[in-house]
């Protein structure tokens, strides 16, 4: 039976470099995402943070010209090992995107359970899985009486939380979030941030954000990415969120978090 017994995992990036065709966009990224922690990836546009988060569940492979060097270890096992199927990786490492993308032809309920059908998994107790997933995304009370309505009838913020619930139904060890609030209003943003805090008790979370206040509110650790003309993106500074924002070591980090550029 597929009950929710979440096990957070440690995720480690070792010397990760990425190319799109001839152009290198990331160079030697080394980061450790600790279990039950929220790590924020910040940096100006084009610094490679969105590309990097996609390497963590092999979504960057959808871009035909993309190439990667280095390793990503999930609890010590390389997700790029030739014996590993990317489909299995994505079931263990879920992802929430910038724009809410619920499946428009499916009901609220079927959206939450869509991962089962898409991946061919079975669940003996779908009702329980549905309820638990929606509760973990803190939206059960809002939708429990309208589970058969189309997902598109929900507001933008609700749609995004539905997408979170959809990922949670796969019981992933890690949840990747690529600017999950950038399309949402402040109220919805606050609710999603509260959800992130609750979820971090049971899983590892990596979040890309443009919003530095958000990074400070939700994350335990922060990595600052930077790229320049002709210089591929990389990590300038990585440490506890308090330290990165309070006492940055690198002057570039200091300039960025204090709003001097970006």
């Amino acid at each position: 039976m597929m009950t929710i017994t979440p096990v957070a995992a440690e995720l480690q990036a070792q010397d990760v470099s990425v190319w799109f065709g001839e152009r290198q966009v990331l160079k030697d990224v080394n980061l450790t995402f600790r279990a039950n922690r929220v790590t924020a990836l910040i940096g100006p546009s084009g610094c490679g943070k969105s590309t990097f988060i996609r390497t963590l569940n092999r979504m960057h492979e959808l871009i035909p010209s993309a190439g990667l060097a280095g390793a990503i270890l999930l609890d010590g096992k390389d997700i790029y090992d030739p014996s590993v199927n990317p489909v299995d990786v994505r079931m263990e490492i879920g992802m929430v995107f910038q724009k809410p993308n619920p499946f428009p032809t499916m009901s609220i309920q079927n959206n939450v359970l869509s991962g089962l059908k898409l991946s061919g998994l079975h669940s003996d107790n779908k009702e329980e899985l549905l309820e638990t997933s929606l509760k973990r995304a803190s939206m059960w009370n809002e939708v429990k009486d309208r589970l058969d309505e189309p997902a598109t009838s929900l507001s933008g913020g609700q749609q995004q939380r539905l997408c979170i619930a959809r990922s949670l139904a796969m019981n992933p060890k890690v949840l990747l979030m690529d600017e999950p609030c950038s399309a949402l209003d402040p109220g919805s943003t606050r609710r999603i941030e509260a959800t992130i805090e609750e979820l971090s008790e049971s899983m590892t979370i990596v979040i890309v954000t443009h919003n530095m206040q958000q990074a400070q509110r939700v994350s335990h650790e922060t990595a600052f990415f930077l790229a320049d003309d002709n210089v591929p993106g990389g990590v300038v500074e990585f440490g506890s969120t308090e330290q990165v924002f309070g006492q940055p070591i690198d002057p570039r980090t200091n300039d960025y978090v204090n709003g001097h550029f970006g």
Partner: protein
Amino acid sequence: MSRGDRLFFGITSSAAYFAFILVGLILVFLIAQAWPAIQEQGFAFVYGDKWEVTEEKTILQIGPMLYGSILIALLGVLIATPMAIATAYMIVFILKGGWAKLATNLIDLLAALPSVIIGLWGVLVFTPIAQGWAEFLHQYLGWIPLFATDKGTTSLNSSPFIAGWIVAVMIVPIITSVTREIFSQFDRELVNGALALGATRWTVFRRVILPTTSGGITGGVLLGLGRAIGETVAIYYVLQLSMNINLFQILEPRGGAIASWILSRFGEATDKEFHGLMAAGLVIFITTLIINLIANVIVNKAQPWRK
């Protein structure tokens, strides 16, 4: 409005009305020409199965031809739809830049081939090949009524089966281009969302792309169906026209197609027969009109989330 705008508005609106007026005039012409036959033959014209023109009497009925047109069109759609969807999927989601363009151009070129060419190819090249397929189907699946024949396995040509394939070749381009258009507007974020949940290419297609686009694809299929029903010359070459109705034995060398029937009789038609052929034309016209209306309803109803 300025003078230039008025002129522009005048030209565009008269172009729009022109189509309306033309369709209306054709309908009026057909009804006028068909009227004597309709009056004389009554409603049996549509469903009866006798076409006799002698000195004493004239019986004009097109039941088997109307039925045959629909049967062949359905066979064509059944064969063409999976091919078209697969082709469109390849072009939009798999092939890269230059190859996608090449495939698109080749398919469009297929649409530009005159149907007489396809008919000649059909009878000279394709029929001997498809005859082999028909014999295979009859031999191994002959116990299914659809693949049964009255005369055994020999010379299974000139059948609705072969005509269906020929029609399929002719409507694959139109279904492909409609489907390609719909696929290319498909929100890639939905594909990403599904893949991030552990979907494979197949489950993304089956569970996300197809349900979301089925309304539009159905529209393309019905457009193809409309074309298939009116198909004339190509079918004329590959099908044995027969007033002895062939309900479902699609491998049998007899079948019907209204448009081809008109073509085959027109040259030596008597005066009365001429009006009968015009009435047959009216029947195709109305059938195609009904299919297009159904297409509109389905396309609108199939996408309730699109408002």
